């Protein structure tokens, strides 16, 4: 029985004793698992990159995020665009367009999910980075980016959904179902605070290394804050924001000397125009051949708006009403839309019946055949969210409100002047062409506004300029809402009045105007107690 004497202790030792706990300690491998993650400067940068990633998700975010694009709101809800593509395809988008969206609709859900994912990520950085041991300069900049991106996300939410729950730190499990929606005014105040911190902490555009081109800047923070103020002033101005504040912000952007109008409007939406002198903030894309999920660095935005007969799915069709808004020979029109038979970057376009609603497609989303991705949903084409021309027109609007008509006219004329000296769209003169041909005769095109323009006429001129300068850039819906013109425009788009009635049913009365709002995702209201928007 000697053998027994030995084997029993051996076996028992393998159970009890020190070896036991060690054997059961199996750390996750290949991933970092501690909040000390943020103490490394490289990690700190990566954690901020991940916030940018979340705001770029258009298909396949981490929280069940399907297709969602800014044009589904900014263009489709307005009189600028119709759903497009074949009649039966993407009925959820048609429901959006007609304000018949169901409370479980996927598009608003995806936007909601992605923005809150960005907010969670920003909050992680804001919570853990301040105590990190990385250099103060880098820390400041990264925190500035996080505040900017949180402000951006909340701004994006408030203009679509109204007031939303506000989180200054990652949501605790115990808070689930215990939070409620802030008012619209509280949400704007939160956004203001974030952007103001971002303005303080972020460098100007020239303060970044070249490799960081595309990161949030002081200028971008000012621009978005001004945009938020303007929406607030025109919808629910409980916080008493003033046009002077808008003016000061836009003025600071102009005075910073970081930006100027690109001499050629036709270049703005081509690969060579990306992150150009006029760019204030763009969502950056890169073709990395991944079609889905957070690892995807390209976008679906190009293919979904592309031409079905060449490369695309044919959605977001510019309306005749938008085309009619352009003055005669405005060089911006062929940069904004294309139609059957047009040559676009050297490629002749056929637009087939049954695959298009209006006869037009969005030229600004067209992707140069040379840069078309092999994985169709991974286009490298950036989405411009803010450019200097917008700032000039915002400044003009503020100046007009502040009684400085001459300055306003001057600012609008800067924009018109650049437009009239722009070339034809890239590669539009012959099949295979990729050059920018100048217009032969520009006499009388887009004359300067009269310096004596004032009152409502001046505002109309500014609104008109915004619509054509920023056509198909997803600004129209918000401009209409904040200036109280939305419901009339909607009635013109859908003379049956159904869309308008629906939109009114889904509106909140703000201090200034009726604010149409999209549905809070069904689950958030039904299961987690968030107040639903009217009529959903």
């Amino acid at each position, binding site marked *: 029985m000697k*053998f*027994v004497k030995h084997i029993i202790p051996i*076996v*028992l030792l*393998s*159970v009890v004793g020190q070896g*036991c706990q060690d*054997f*059961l300690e*199996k*750390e*996750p491998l*290949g991933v970092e*698992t*501690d*909040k000390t993650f943020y103490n490394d400067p490289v*990690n700190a940068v*990566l*954690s901020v*990159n*991940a*916030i*940018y*990633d979340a705001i770029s998700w258009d298909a396949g975010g*981490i*929280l069940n995020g399907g297709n969602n694009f800014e044009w589904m709101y900014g263009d489709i809800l307005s009189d600028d665009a119709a759903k497009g593509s*074949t*009649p*039966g395809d993407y009925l959820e988008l048609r429901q959006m367009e007609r304000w018949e969206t169901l409370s479980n609709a996927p598009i608003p*859900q995806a936007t909601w999910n992605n923005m*809150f*994912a960005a907010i*969670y*990520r920003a*909050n*992680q950085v804001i919570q853990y980075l301040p105590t990190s041991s990385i250099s103060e300069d880098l820390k400041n900049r990264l925190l500035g980016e996080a505040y900017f991106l949180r402000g951006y996300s909340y701004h994006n939410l408030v203009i679509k959904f109204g007031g*939303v729950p506000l989180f200054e730190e990652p*949501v605790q*499990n115990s808070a689930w*179902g215990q*939070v409620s929606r802030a008012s619209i005014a509280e949400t704007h105040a939160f956004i203001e605070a974030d952007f103001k911190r971002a303005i303080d902490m972020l460098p100007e555009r020239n303060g970044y290394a070249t490799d*960081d*081109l*595309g990161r949030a800047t002081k200028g971008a923070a000012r621009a978005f804050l001004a945009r938020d103020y303007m929406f607030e002033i025109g919808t629910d101005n409980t916080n008493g924001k003033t046009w002077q504040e808008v003016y000061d912000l836009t003025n600071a952007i102009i005075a910073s000397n970081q930006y100027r109008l690109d001499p050629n409007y036709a270049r703005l939406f081509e690969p060579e125009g990306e*992150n150009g002198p006029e760019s204030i903030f763009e969502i950056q894309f890169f*073709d*990395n*051949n991944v079609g889905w999920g*957070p*690892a995807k*660095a390209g976008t679906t935005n190009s293919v979904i708006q592309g*031409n079905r007969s060449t*490369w695309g*799915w044919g959605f977001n069709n510019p309306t005749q009403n938008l085309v009619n808004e352009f003055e005669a020979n405005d060089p911006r029109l062929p940069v904004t839309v294309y139609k059957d038979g047009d040559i676009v970057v050297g490629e002749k376009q056929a637009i087939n*019946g*049954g*695959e298009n609603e209006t006869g037009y497609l969005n030229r600004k989303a067209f992707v140069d055949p040379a840069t078309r991705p*092999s994985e*169709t949903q991974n286009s490298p084409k950036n989405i411009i969210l803010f450019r200097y021309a917008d700032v000039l027109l915002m400044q003009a609007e503020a100046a007009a409100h502040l009684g400085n008509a001459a300055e306003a006219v001057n600012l609008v004329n800067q924009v018109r002047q650049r437009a009239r000296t722009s070339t034809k769209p890239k590669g539009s003169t012959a099949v295979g062409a990729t050059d920018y041909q100048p217009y032969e005769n520009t006499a009388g095109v887009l004359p300067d506004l009269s310096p004596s323009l004032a009152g409502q006429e001046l505002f109309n001129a500014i609104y008109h300029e915004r619509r054509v300068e920023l056509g198909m850039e997803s600004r129209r819906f918000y401009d209409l809402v904040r200036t109280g013109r939305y419901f009339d425009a909607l009635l013109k788009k859908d003379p049956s009045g159904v869309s308008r009635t629906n939109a009114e049913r889904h509106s909140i009365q703000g201090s200034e105007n009726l604010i149409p709002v999209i549905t809070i995702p069904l689950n*958030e209201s039904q299961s987690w107690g968030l107040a639903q928007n009217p009529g959903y």
Partner: protein
Amino acid sequence: MFLLMALIIGPLELLAQAVAVSGTVKDGVNGEPLPGVTIVVKGTSSGTASGIDGSFSLQVPDANAVLIFSFIGYANQEVPVNGQTTLNITLQSDAKALEEVVVIGYGTIKKSDLTGSVATVDTEKITQVATVDVNQALQGKVAGVQVTPSSGAPGTASRVRIRGVGSFGTSDPLYVVDGFTTNNIDYLAPTDIESMEVLKDASATAVYGNRGANGVIIVTTKKGKAGAPVFNFNTYAGIQNPWNTLELANASQYATLFLEAYTNDGRNVQDPSVISPENYAALRNAIDNNLTGTDWQKAVINKNAPIQNYNFSVNGGTEKSRYGFSATYFDQQGTITNTGMKRFLLRLNNDYTFNKRFSAGYSLSYANSKFNNYSTDQYSGVLPVAIVAAPIIPVWDPITNNYGNSVPFSQGYNPVRLAEEQRTRTTQQNRLVGTLYGDVKFTDAFSFRSTFGGDRSFNKIGNYYPQFVVSPAEQRSQSSLYDERQNGWGWTWSNVFSYVKEFGDHSINAVVGTEAVSGFYDYVNVTGTNILNDPSQYYIGAAKSTQFSAGSNVGQNSLLSLLGRVNYSYKNRYMFTASFRADGTSRLTKTNRVGYFPSFSFGWNAHEEAFFQNQNVLTTLKLRAGYGEVGNQNNLSNTATSYVVTPQQRYSFNGVPVEGRANTVLVNRDLIWENSKMTNFGVDAGFLNNQINLTLDYFDKRTTDLIVGSPPAPAYVGALPPAINAGTMQNKGLEAALNYSKKEGDFTYDLGVNASFIRNKVLKLAEGQPVAGGDVNGIGATTRTQEGQPFASFYGRKTDGIFNNQAEIDAYNVDGELIQPNAQPGDVKFVDLNSDGQIDDLDRTILGSAIPDFSYGFNAFLGYKNFDFKLFFQGLAGNETVNALSIFNANPRGTYNSYADRMNRWTPQNPAANEPRMTLSDPNQNVAFSDRYVENGSYLRLRNVQLGYSLPAVTLSRFAVKGLRVYVSADNLLTLTKYRGYEPEVGDWYGNAFYQGVDVATYPQARTFIGGLNLTF
């Protein structure tokens, strides 16, 4: 391999001066011949087995040799030859040996002493159906075990549920193969298995602790027995066809419905801005010429797909050294083009008895499988696309010299192109499983066994995606190759002391031991682009583009346990079993790591009582009762309790991609495993000398702390919710198995029926919140898990036929306000369940469940002389199935192809119809998820019918052959079901339990005809 064989069979001795001996072996009681009796020449490894008529003949080395006759259930008999050439032997049954022994966790027990609910399936039944999947072979054989093939695609695993769905995640049972625990037994061929014991109740499985909650299947493989080598060769070959195809609209019908959807919405189909002139012409042409068009189902079916299986084995050895070797090759083409599997299995085992005290042995298995990756995706799976593709499109368009472009019509891809691409998407698996044991007998009663098992796997997934252009919407502008390599290593080491002893009326069978389990896996994948479409170039190095993407994952876990069990029996009448296990797992935090799992059970062999002896109707009566607590850790991920920073949250700056990292899943450090408490009552009864056997079991299983992997969470949290212990679920039921076997002259009967009734109910969920699941694109969630209802019940709107005319729409109002203001005649009438005057998501209700009320199997074996006939039925009743592809095939838009019976749709000319009208815009939302999708999923299937003939031993002995049976067999010859989809056997789509019974064109089972032979020599 021959070398290997030579090594194993090496010890065979050449016979010299042989003497021929022959004779017969008979039963000592009834005098009937005994086939299969092992006859060994004492002290050698040479020997034979008796034939079907009990006869034997063999050569003995000399006239003084001694023969040992042995047979299960009979006492061994040693017979000196003493110069005789004819020996007629009668074997006496051994009361002790007759006691069937049942394998239970970490040991064996006499069947009469068993107190838990354990069912045994023998090799005969496992090899009946033509499959290499052992789990499928279990289907319908055991009461309370439901096996559902997740697809008819070769290479896909079956889903096994013991006593219902026990978890919201994985409810797979634990497998124990000769003492080695594993989750997957695909490395075993059905022919390698001696028997399978299904441990159903917690009193039997509690000794497996936190892995025992979903039942345990103990597999005993065939091993070498002392005696002359026995060679077996089994083969079968045949053809397969899908048992079912759907009746779909043809080209003319398709075009009619397509155009009608436009005209019903007031659109002018001849307006070129509505339908392009070419498309209109194609539709018109189909109607005017009454074209049939393309039958897409036919186009993707692989008719008469071959199936073949070869298995060779040899077993034998001496009392001291025994060996077994088997090789299996299985090759099956699927019934859909370019699906199929090849599997090659090798198995080798050796057992050594060194002396009275020490014995040891090992077994080694190697499995190699290769199969095509079949996609079940709604939009890119071959079958889902084939049934929606427009029949007016040709498979191949001679004008464009390209695949027919289906996109303008059905918005789906060309199914034949998709089927063609499956050719270049394959998975190859290599698995090496070995176990090694050493056994020490300290005394006759007290012994120790150490078993170590290792499991190494190397897999490769290679998916090549060729470049092609069918249309702008159906194209791939650059070819790519996805190459994934997986590597796994797991081991289990158990050390168990056993004590088995009888003292007079008392008998004790006890084990105590420890077990350590370790698991590790990692994988790396790379995608390369622009690779020539040539199999010799399907390697990452052949990529011509500089664009690569790569990923990897790695995981590890461990388990350390202390276990024990004691079974005490008094006078063979009163039995008591208690077991205990303490498990520590690496998957939980230190504070929650260790769990304790006890069980108790009692048995009473009533027939042993004196008052039972005076009758001969009820031969056996045993009553059992048991209670146990078990756990399930399958749904705990390796990182469940860690704050993990997820990579690949990518963005780009200055035109260059950058890496991003974020925590994407919240942490729940309080997580624990799922706990089940199960009570079981059972009766085993044998009538008329045990010709009729009945087993009844009633159980009640309550599982608490159910892990919800993605629990409902507000999206405003901004990250994925952590797994939480959120639910309580109950499965209770009744199982019955009835067997009748009799031998009468030339006839042998063996009939078996088994049935089980299970009621599943979710008792509690976190904060009462229901969990939505089973998302199908186009209709959203189809299932809901809510308190008081079966798990993952179907949840949607209720309908009440269709509105046949405007008057019915007008009549459906509340105070004059129409309930369905958007409806037109021919639209679906939804029931306003909450009576709020409108139809919306609040009008949804429970519409059924995929969990059957009743599942059953029926086996019959009839033998007449040398003929044998087998019949096996299996079925489910009382379950519903969601025919999810009805969003396409019963859609109102006409853009997808429709069921042929959609031609009976509502039209002004056909106002009495029950099929809704065509409409492009569908303002009434006819397509919303409702009871129109939910169908009766019950079925009865003749799973197998088989006729065999065994050649007479007399004939065979002339060719030195011990047995030869030839047979013909058919699988799935007959299926009775009202279900309209391809296949009533619907598993969990995407392997997700919340999708149970949601059918997205499940790959139909094959109707298989085979011929085969079993040869023993």
